[in-house]
């Protein structure tokens, strides 16, 4: 068991190592074989990005925390709304069928296009931020949760039905725990998206944040290209962090799940 765990870590490290080697050789290839004058923008050397990353670590970290806090607020609101709506839709088949198509319509509205109108409705940058980030988080959570709620075993439903459990209890004790795996699959998609959303919202102006770093470094050209990549890297790390939080939450909340991806005995 232990051995297996550590070999898994080694595999992750191997992946990272392979990616870095590929990255470095790609950059080298662009620079020295293709003589691409856009090499720095297209694919700067990984070690250069890392060196920028560590040189400006303090500043990147501060911005990352800012973006993370915005993302977290949006994520929590969006996920909560997603869960709630999925429950309401499953709760009443009627409501579900009535609002589901409109939910899709709503989701299809391009967020960036909606921003001006949201700004004119809520009139506060902070509130607009949360609404927009929540909007993006909402859908994967709602869809996954809804499909989980719809797949509950007939027998398990019959059991609690035979106790004439109230709807509330049916949801608390059966529907929700039984859809937790699906919900978590949705949350795993949504958590990194929430970071994306927070950064997206920074395009509407903010004092600081990873998005602002990305914007600045794009605006001022090649000299900031490394900073751009370092910021993108930071953003990706934030996303991984979000994913990891959900992953551990899942392991914590669902002890009955046997170790997933159990190895086959072929």
């Amino acid at each position, binding site marked *: 068991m232990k051995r297996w765990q550590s070999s898994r870590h080694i595999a992750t490290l191997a992946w990272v190592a392979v990616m870095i080697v590929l990255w470095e050789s790609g950059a080298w290839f662009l620079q020295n074989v293709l003589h691409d004058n856009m090499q720095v923008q297209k694919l700067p050397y990984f070690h250069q990005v890392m060196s920028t990353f560590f040189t400006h670590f303090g500043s990147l970290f501060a911005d990352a925390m800012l973006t993370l806090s915005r993302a977290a607020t949006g994520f929590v609101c969006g996920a909560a709304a997603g869960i709630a709506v999925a429950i309401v839709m499953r709760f009443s088949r009627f409501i579900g069928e009535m609002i589901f198509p409109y939910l899709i319509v709503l989701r299809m509205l391009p967020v960036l296009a909606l921003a001006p109108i949201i700004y004119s409705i809520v009139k506060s940058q902070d509130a607009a931020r949360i609404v927009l980030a929540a909007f993006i988080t909402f859908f994967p959570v709602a869809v996954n949760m809804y499909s989980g709620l719809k797949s509950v*075993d007939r*027998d*398990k439903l*019959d*059991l*609690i*039905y*035979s*106790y*004439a*459990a*109230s709807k509330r*209890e049916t949801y608390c*004790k*059966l529907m929700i*725990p*039984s859809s*937790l795996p699906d919900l978590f699959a949705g949350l795993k998609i949504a958590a990194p998206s929430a970071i994306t959303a927070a950064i997206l919202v920074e395009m509407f102006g903010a004092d600081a944040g990873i998005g602002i770093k990305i914007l600045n470094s794009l605006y001022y050209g090649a000299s900031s290209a490394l900073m751009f990549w370092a910021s993108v890297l930071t953003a990706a790390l934030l996303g991984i962090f979000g994913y990891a939080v959900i992953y551990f939450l899942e392991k914590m909340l*669902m*002890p*009955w799940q*046997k170790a997933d991806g159990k190895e086959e005995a072929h």
Partner: protein
Amino acid sequence: MSTAYKLQIEDVSMVYRGQGGEDITALKNVNLNIRKSEFISLLGPSGCGKTTLLRLIADLLQPTSGKIAIGGLSPRAARKARQYGMVFQSPVLYEWRTIRENICLPLEIMNKTREERKNISDEMLEMVGLSKFAECYPFQLSGGMQQRVGIARALAINPEILLMDEPFSALDEFTRNKLQEDLLRIWSNTKKTVIFVTHNISEAIFLSDRVCVLTPHPGILSAVIDIDLPRPRVDDIRDTPEFAALLSKIRKCFAGMNE
């Protein structure tokens, strides 16, 4: 007079829709009246509609035609009044709950206090011999152990009507005999109405006041046999000639049917 019965099944038929849209008649014109505190067994070969009938009574299915009344109530009303305790044919445990938590599920729903839950679940775990496994999750239990959890869960709430679908089929003879006796003890103490599905004829005789024999395709209630053995019944009763007579009488109901 009709109110003398706890359960009235009148001309009940159940037709499922098959894959190709064709009809599968699971039950046809079943009539049965069950008195309060009666112990009834439903006996019949595989696929004859026993589970279907139990599910109709429990309001988990609606009959295609006919009517079911539970002490004057509709199955729905009786269910809402929480008169039912049900043991399913498969254990139907919630995999996110430990064994104890599974047994406590209906107790929580019926708003028992934490202490009551603890006491009742302890008692039930003891009865089905799983005290040591209280904090295990279902996947850690053997098939028979899981089935016993299902039984413990149904008995925990002390319902007015106990619907049991082949509860002992996965159990060995000794465990089974012990639980049969436990069930009879509980039944005689609490005067529940029990509807017990089984395919084991001797089990049906040992437990029941009456045995209802169902024959398949479509499921028809072909005989209702009174079991006038004295109570309390103990294990030795199985070796009496009366018992043997009933056994062969019921066997005969099925004879010829099996081809």
